[in-house]
């Protein structure tokens, strides 16, 4: 039987807003990876002594670094939100409505954030 196969283009995701948001969610992983590497560099500088560490800290204060971290914050926050929004679908059947799981997850983010913020202050 002669059939026609329509090609799938590499920009398939631009056709539909649902797919665009999926790609945004996936893109969050790039900034997360870069952030982890930034922390890794920070730990390395920490091991190398005060001068190198202070230099790393100073670079973090540059305008482009702060702007980058604002973007990273937004994308990773979006990851956090979508993570818990999707979570009900990955869990085995529990006698809890989906919405409760999402609310609990977001609440957990809030609690952890407040704890870390409090612990961070000297």
């Amino acid at each position: 039987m002669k059939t026609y196969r329509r090609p799938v283009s590499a920009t398939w995701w631009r056709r539909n807003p649902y797919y665009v948001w999926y790609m945004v969610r996936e893109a969050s992983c790039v900034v997360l990876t870069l952030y982890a590497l930034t922390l890794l560099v920070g730990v390395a500088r920490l091991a190398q002594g005060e001068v190198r560490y202070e230099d790393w800290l100073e670079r973090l204060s540059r305008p482009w670094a702060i702007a980058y971290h604002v973007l990273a914050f937004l994308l990773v926050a979006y990851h956090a939100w979508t993570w818990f929004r999707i979570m009900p679908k990955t869990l085995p059947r529990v006698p809890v409505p989906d919405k409760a799981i999402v609310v609990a997850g977001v609440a957990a983010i809030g609690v952890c954030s407040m704890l870390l913020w409090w612990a961070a202050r000297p």
Partner: protein
Amino acid sequence: MKRSNKPIFWSLFGAGGMLSALIGPVLIFITGIAVPLGLIPREAMGYERMRVFAQNGFGKVAIVLVIGLFLFHGLHRMYHSVHDFGIHVTPAMKAAFHGVALLGTLAAVYLVSVIG
């Protein structure tokens, strides 16, 4: 039908996803925005304070877990995203992405062990 070994990577991906969902945003805010802008005093990330943290057993575990799990989550997803853009993924690419995550984790382990 060949059994996939995805469960190993997926478990690491899941752990990293959970951790980064819970504390990723606030960590980025503290280290990348609050401290540089002075919303939190600079001493919060000061050399002495951070060294004490890294020398503490709990601190070492925290550093390795955050860096390692963030890397495994991010790189595993990046590997899948390459496929999503229509690029054919090879076993070599899979090894490369996860290899970087492994190297990063090992580097973190090494660094916290030499810090003291």
